[in-house]
């Protein structure tokens, strides 16, 4: 027996509300713990619960008193008269321990010793009136508040007590037997298959058993002869009078025979089976619905991912074009600064270059390149790094999530979660996050270059030396031979020769490095930019995950169902 089943598991059952059937989940989650509590409570308790139910004013309390043989429950013309349920049970009957409904307070009261006045019960309380009649010792007879009155709380209590019932006495009256609310309840009792007596109380002389039976059959409820009784209207002191009535005596005889101590084990076993089956079915339904929700949630996540991806792609597309040029320039400067110490001919080359260019200076046509420090460049890049595209992308993602992924029902839990205040990244959060990523990027760059600067292998070093000598010589001759002549045209410097003149052997040699770093840098930069969008997506994912039933709980439910199937 999974008696140790923690009650917390019920609270863990959640669903995002993506399927139309989600509202059933809410209902089952309300109902199932109660059923389970009743199931556990009834286990091993040798007590038959008989519950009287019926509409207001049908005379439940009168019949209750007549069955119990005492004036226990107050009767009267005020409607509703019975305010809270009253149980008539033997003083040794195990009613009170572990009573399954937390919302119902149980108070016991002895019927002996004092001539107790009839009780109306108290709203929300279960009043136990203890007796010592051995013939009724195996029964707990309950008078319930009405099913159909203005008092909404009453109905919930009746529902709870009905779960506890092993047998039901359905009380109706001449006026009420065709009323919709009580009749639907009767239909349910019949459907559940519990032992059920139908008493039509307060009948006028003209109403015969056959009329009533025909009318019930017409509505789809058929009752056996001994389970349907018509009791006449008794204007004064009905409880006493009723006990002398032939019809009532007949009913009571059948009632006591059906619910005799000897038949109790059978009835209890049957009811237990029924409860087990009902529990199992409801659990099965719940699990199925939850799994359906899970499937929907997975599909939802897929759709979210697709949305996220399209926004990411768009952002990257915009960024890639502009980033490439900037970062390449920057990296070139970095690499040049780094490797120029291996470029032995750099200085003489510069010198020659300067001499050659001096006539241009005289002519006023000198253009000068800027040299920037690493920090400056980083700062410049950062300053240029415009947060606008990222913020716009986040905004677009948020909008499309609400537009395409929100359930249309405002009561669905996911609908509310998607709109709660903390789920959207604010501009400040985005900024902080991007700065953070940038900082990481800068650190990485520093590290990479430091590593490069430290650990150049000897072979490579010599390679650079030799290449730079060769290349330098080539450039030197090139610059001496035609340099003066062509640089004469300032425009040519810009357009044709500039790449050759300014790029040295080092760049050529470090091409591999440059390429690698550029690729990584681009990747990291992209990741940094996208991490904001990822974060936003993760928030949505978290949101829906907080609304799904955890795996552990699902397993527990499944285990519970198995144990019930075995029982």
């Amino acid at each position: 027996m999974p008696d140790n089943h923690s009650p917390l598991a019920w609270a863990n059952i959640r669903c995002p509300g993506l399927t139309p059937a989600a509202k059933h989940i809410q209902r089952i989650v309300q109902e199932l713990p109660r059923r389970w509590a009743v199931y556990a409570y009834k286990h091993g308790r040798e007590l038959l619960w008989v519950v009287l139910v019926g509409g207001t004013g049908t005379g439940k309390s009168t019949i209750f008193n007549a069955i119990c043989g005492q004036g226990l429950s107050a009767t009267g013309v005020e409607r509703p008269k019975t305010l809270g349920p009253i149980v008539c049970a033997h003083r040794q009957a195990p009613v009170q321990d572990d009573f399954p409904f937390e919302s119902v307070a149980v108070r016991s009261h002895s019927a002996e010793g004092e001539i107790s006045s009839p009780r109306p019960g108290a709203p929300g309380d279960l009043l136990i009136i203890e007796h010592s009649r051995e013939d009724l010792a195996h029964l707990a007879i309950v008078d319930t508040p009405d099913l159909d009155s203005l008092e909404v709380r009453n109905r919930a209590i009746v529902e709870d007590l009905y779960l506890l019932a092993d047998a039901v006495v359905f009380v109706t009256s001449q006026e009420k037997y065709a009323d919709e609310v009580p009749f639907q309840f009767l239909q349910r009792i019949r459907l559940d298959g519990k032992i059920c007596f139908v008493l039509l109380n307060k009948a006028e002389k003209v109403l015969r058993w056959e009329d009533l039976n025909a009318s019930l059959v017409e509505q789809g409820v058929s009752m056996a002869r001994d389970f349907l009784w018509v009791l006449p209207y008794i204007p004064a002191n009905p409880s006493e009078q009723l006990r002398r009535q032939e019809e009532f005596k007949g009913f009571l005889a059948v009632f006591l025979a059906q619910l005799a101590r000897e038949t109790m084990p059978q009835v209890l076993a049957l009811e237990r089976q029924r409860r087990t089956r009902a529990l199992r079915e409801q659990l099965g339904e719940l699990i199925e619905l939850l799994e359906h929700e899970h499937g929907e949630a997975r599909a939802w996540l897929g759709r979210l991912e697709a949305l996220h991806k399209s926004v990411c792609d768009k952002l990257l597309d915009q960024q890639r074009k502009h980033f490439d040029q900037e970062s390449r320039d920057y990296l070139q400067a970095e690499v040049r600064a780094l490797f120029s110490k291996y470029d032995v001919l750099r200085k003489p080359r510069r010198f020659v270059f300067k001499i050659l260019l001096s006539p241009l200076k005289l002519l006023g046509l000198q253009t000068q390149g800027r040299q920037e420090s690493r920090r400056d460049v980083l700062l410049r890049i950062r300053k240029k790094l415009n947060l606008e595209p990222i913020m716009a992308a986040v905004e677009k993602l948020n909008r499309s999530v609400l537009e395409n992924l929100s359930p249309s029902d405002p009561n669905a839990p996911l609908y509310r979660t998607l709109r709660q205040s903390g789920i959207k990244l604010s501009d400040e959060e985005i900024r902080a996050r991007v700065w953070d990523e940038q900082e990481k990027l800068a650190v990485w760059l520093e590290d990479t270059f430091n590593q490069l600067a430290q650990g150049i292998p000897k072979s490579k070093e010599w390679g650079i030396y030799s290449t730079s000598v060769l290349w330098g010589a080539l450039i030197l001759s090139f610059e001496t031979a035609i340099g003066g002549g062509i640089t004469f045209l300032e425009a040519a410097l810009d357009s044709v020769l500039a790449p050759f003149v300014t790029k040295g052997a080092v760049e050529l040699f470090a091409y591999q490095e440059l390429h690698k770093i550029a690729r990584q840098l681009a990747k990291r930069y992209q990741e940094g930019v996208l991490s904001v969008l990822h974060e936003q997506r993760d928030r949505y994912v978290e949101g829906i995950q907080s609304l799904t039933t955890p795996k552990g709980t699902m397993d527990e439910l499944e285990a519970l169902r198995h144990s019930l199937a075995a029982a």
Partner: protein
Amino acid sequence: MKHSVLELRNDLTQFQALLGDGSFFTFSAKERDDLLAQSEKYLHKLDGLAEGFLTIGLLGGTGVGKSSIMNALAGSEISSTSHRRPHTNQVLIYHHEASFLPANLQQAAVPWRSIKHQADSIRQILLCDLPDFDSLSTLHREHVNTFLEHLDVLVWITSPEKYADERFYQFLRHVPKAKQNFYFVLNKADLLFEGQPKEEGYDRLSRVTENFQRYLIENEVSHPLIYALSAGQILGNHPVAPWNQFGSFRRQIFQHRDVKEIMAIKAANIDVEVQQLLSVLDKEAMNIAAARQVLEKFIQDVQHGRADWAAIGGQALDVWLAGHLRKDIYFWTDFSGILVGPGRVLLSLLRDWRRWIEKEPQRSVTQLLIEGRTAEMLQRRLERLQDRVAHGLLSRGLPPMFQQQVESILDPASQWDELKERLDRAAEMWLARTRAPAAVGFRSIQYLTYGFVLLLMLLALAGESAWRSFLENPGWSGLVIVLSALVQHLFSPVGLAALGSYILLNVFFAFRFYARYKKLLQRHAQKFIESLKSELIRVWEAELDSIIEQMQDYDRELEARMAAIGVLHERKSED
């Protein structure tokens, strides 16, 4: 009766006008048509107020004795009573033999049967016995609901057993009729007395009536008129007990009413019905209020982010100005007029060279278009605005109509087209206004320099003696001597050296002046770009203003709508 017939008519026509202008947010087209049809029906009813019939309906749960009361009122068995439940499934209409049933009643989509009587005193009254509303038969409930619209006075019947049934009060709350036209009957009161001493019976009756009254008051019937009676006593020819209020009930129901009174009763009902119809506007008003909150927050945000807006615009424009425009500007701004002689030749040579290098078709001023990245950045900003307001509306769960409207106002594509046109026009106008500087000083320096160099060359070429003879003896002969000396020396080594020096000097000065020209051009371009930028940013900021203004206009439109709804609404809440 809170409102006159005139007021009601006014309300309805206003309501129809509101519906008719089509800018409702909350309702679909179908819902709107339904509402229109309903309001039309009420208008029609208002027209028919003077018809003079008073329709009284007997309403109650199954088994409370509606038919018995009907029979008791009619004084004969006209309605069958039975202990079988549920019983009556058709509407029974009891009317004077000389009066015809109103047409709309005859067309009622409910089975009905009419019974004629000859009592002249109640000839303007139609008494209707309705099916029960709490039984199993859903058909009965539907019949009652459909028939409700024909009723003017409602008699609610219950019994000592049923007076606390939730269904009764549910139905009571749901019926859109004026509460002052309600009567309540506690039938079968004799059951309370049966088998009891008289005092006990009275005590029970008073307790039941008190409870009943309390429940009614709790359910918003402020002054319920309750009759405790027993129709059975009347029908069974039993002696009528003193507590049986059937007599006064009958008098109340069958009292003679004049046309004015009947009209008032009917109008009161229509009033309640109309107010209920108008209550659909609550939702609309709520939605508009929520939308306005979103809009106002948005406008506030946008205004707050003005500096940010300008910065973004500046950044975007910089990309264009510093990138494309700075290069292009040398093509467009043709100040070649301020360069003279060799400088000018050099300029045109360089230009040709550049054109040849770049092989690009020369862009003309008319193609001055803001595109590429700048366009992208500006466009993105516009899109972001739309996304933001859409998100705001979506997160409030407002009907899509709002979003459509806002989107049409803030449509980034059309917005951008307009803005681009405005930016392009501003840039063009700015460009057209620039004039080449006169640069008289610069030009005279060039003339002087080149003249001086030429003079030097002429001096050197002709030689000292030729010039001296010319200066001593100015005249044609002197000039001829100088010329001949020039020609003579030109082909001598000295002459060639002088010519070479002359050319070199000219080239040198050409470059110097070209450099100066370029600097001038650069300065000009810088100034030009700066002023163009500020002009364009002005346009960009004006765009923001226009967006704010449009949103404010929309907000005002919503406000006006709110006010229009509010007028109807206020009337409703005058209760």
